[in-house]
């Protein structure tokens, strides 16, 4: 396999962008935040993030913000992922393996239903600010 050059990457980007503009601005302002602290990494957060990217790519959701953060204080249920979709409650999911990541994309982001058996509500009490981060 030949290495892709920066020029090839640039033209690929332009093609994808043209494609994006044709579609609706679906997914805009939705965010996926993955806990990538030592605890997250040890529990497989890299694979989780990779699975999110693959699932989003399959569903042609190119507009979702995907970022990494540190430990949310829920080390016992890592990998943890916060999902923010306008019009839906902000949710922290725990124990998000590859399969669950895919489920979150299909259910939460596409079908707009919460994946109830993985919800862990909010970061640990000493991580969030006194006012609940509001």
């Amino acid at each position, binding site marked *: *396999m*030949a*290495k*892709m050059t*920066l020029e090839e*990457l*640039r033209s*690929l*980007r332009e093609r*994808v*962008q043209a494609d*994006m503009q044709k579609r609706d601005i679906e*997914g805009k302002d939705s965010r*996926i935040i993955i806990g*990538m602290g*030592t*605890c997250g*990494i*040890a529990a*497989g957060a*890299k*694979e989780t*993030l*990779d699975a*999110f*990217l693959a699932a*989003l*790519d399959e569903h042609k*959701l*190119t*507009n*979702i*913000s*995907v*970022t*990494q*953060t*540190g*430990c949310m*204080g829920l080390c016992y249920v890592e990998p943890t992922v916060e999902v923010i979709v306008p019009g839906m409650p902000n949710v922290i999911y725990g124990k998000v393996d590859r399969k669950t990541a895919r489920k979150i994309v299909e259910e939460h982001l596409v079908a707009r239903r919460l994946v109830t058996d993985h919800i862990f509500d909010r970061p640990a009490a*000493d*991580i969030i600010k006194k006012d609940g981060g509001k």
Partner: protein
Amino acid sequence: MHISLSDYLMDIVQNSFEAGASHVQLTIQEGERMMICTVRDDGKGMDEATMRRALDPFYSEEGKHRGRRFGLGLPFLHQAVDACGGEFSLQSQVGEGTVVRFSFDMAHIDSPPIGDLAAALCFLLAHPASEDLKITRSLAGRSGYTLDRRELQDVLGELESSGSLSLLRRYVASQEAGLHSEYTE
């Protein structure tokens, strides 16, 4: 403990981001047997006492989460390197930056597998706290490839949307795959 060398790398390079580094250089040299990695940053650095404590599994800098005792990144790495006949060194100077250098003997039975290096490098490049990250990867003395965050950002725009990240992921994977096919040719 982490499962793969790629996971250790992800963990350790994030320390540099958290130390406020604006320039981070990661070098990965894979030889016949040894895998040598160097992380060099211009973050705030550490004094002697802090360096010693950084290897204590129950030490983390005060302020991030007061009252919590954690900070397992470096101790994990140190222990893993120790277990498989590798070398580990930590050099740092307050106000100058830090260099972490470690090697794994990949032939050692207790060495972790390399893991998904392309994914790890992609996510480090996309990490929100990474400003200027340069990665140099070589295999068996060949030049390999380099990844420059600023250059990639110039091509892809922000490295945050799922669309850009998927492209970045493909790009890094093609570099890694290309390196291996050049090696076997």
